[in-house]
């Protein structure tokens, strides 16, 4: 240090240059620790240089396999899983519970239909459960009966004799009202109206 006014003159510059060169050289002229080559080889893959196309082929195959396995897992999971839904009973549900329930209709199941399997995951959860299990539709016979006993135009016998319908009396006919008759009162004579004379009466 010095109190002399500092000027970057020629000799001072050369001194500074030497100091900088020396400092940089000392900082940078350092060699790696011994055994560098062995440390590099320890980090190399045991396999030799592999072409990039081979790597991409292996990566693509592994990726496709992973996607396939994932898809199978998803299908299995969502195909049979049970979804537990917490549901608050509505007013309609409460009324239906209070009313007497009709006997359940007989359900005809096919022999092949397996009983519904309840696959509840997760244990005891309160509330109503809505399952996504498969419920087979009952096989019901024709509600209109056998097709052979049904009436059809094609089944009418052409030679059959059908009775002629007779008109029913008024009294018997439903939906008609008989003329009003009051006992002791004769019905008035019918009023006959003469044809009008344009010349006047008596002419």
């Amino acid at each position, binding site marked *: *240090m*010095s109190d*002399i006014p*500092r*000027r*970057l*003159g020629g*000799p*001072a*510059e050369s*001194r*500074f*240059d*030497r*100091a*900088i*060169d*020396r*400092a*940089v*050289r*000392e*900082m*940078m*002229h*350092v*060699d*790696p*620790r011994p055994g*560098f*080559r062995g*440390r*590099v*080889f320890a*980090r*190399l*893959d045991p396999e*030799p*240089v592999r*072409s*990039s196309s081979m790597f991409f082929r292996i990566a693509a195959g592994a990726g496709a396999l992973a996607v396939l396995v994932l898809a199978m897992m998803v299908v299995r999971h969502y195909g049979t899983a049970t979804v537990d839904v917490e549901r608050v009973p509505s007013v309609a549900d409460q009324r239906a519970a209070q009313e007497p329930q009709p006997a359940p209709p007989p359900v005809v199941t096919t022999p092949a239909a397996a009983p519904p399997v309840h696959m509840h995951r997760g244990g005891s959860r309160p509330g109503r459960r809505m399952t996504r299990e498969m419920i087979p539709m009952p096989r019901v016979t024709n509600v209109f009966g056998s097709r052979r006993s049904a009436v059809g135009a094609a089944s009418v016998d052409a030679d059959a004799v059908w009775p002629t319908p007779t008109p029913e009396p008024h009294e018997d006919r439903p939906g008609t009202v008989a003329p009003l008759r009051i006992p002791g009162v004769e019905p008035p004579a019918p009023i006959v109206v003469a044809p009008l004379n344009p010349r006047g009466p008596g002419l």
Partner: protein
Amino acid sequence: MTATEASATDLDLVRLAQAGDVEAFGELVERNRRAVFRAALACVGNPAEADDVAQEAFVTAYRKLSTFRGEAQFRTWLLSITWRKAIDRRKSVSRWLKMAVAPARDESGEDAFDQMERVASTERSQEDTIVDEELQRNVMRLIGTLPRKLRDALLLAGTGEHTYEQISQMLGAPLGTVKWRVSEARRVLKKKLAALGYAYE
């Protein structure tokens, strides 16, 4: 190392390594380890980290060896890989966190540039012992305060292993810009030394 490998050029060794000759790649490591290490050291400023970065650079080069076509020199290509690795290390979050928790000081109280100074001091020549030790330490400390771009150029130019063209490739800057940065770094250092009171004696 065989006699053939010793006389072979870097490109010959690269071709052998590309064909699966691991020993040829080992010879490439031997030939370039110092240049790679010093480039990493100029960037990260810590010999231990520079050693690790240099190893990573060689491993990456080995894995990408099939992509090397020989348009550029192998060393230039290798130094570019090294510099990218070193920049990544310098920017890495873990390093930043380490610096934030213990700001550039290790258990012995030394920072990265102190360690560099200590390592370098073991190799001091007879000529260096006669110079002003205090000035020397101050120059090293001031180098650590330089802007990144100026410091990188100055240290890479001072390694004695890299040409200006290779430094230009590493830094991704034109040759003239690199030379200007080196000159500017020296000018800033001189100015700071003068501000500290150093003058001609």
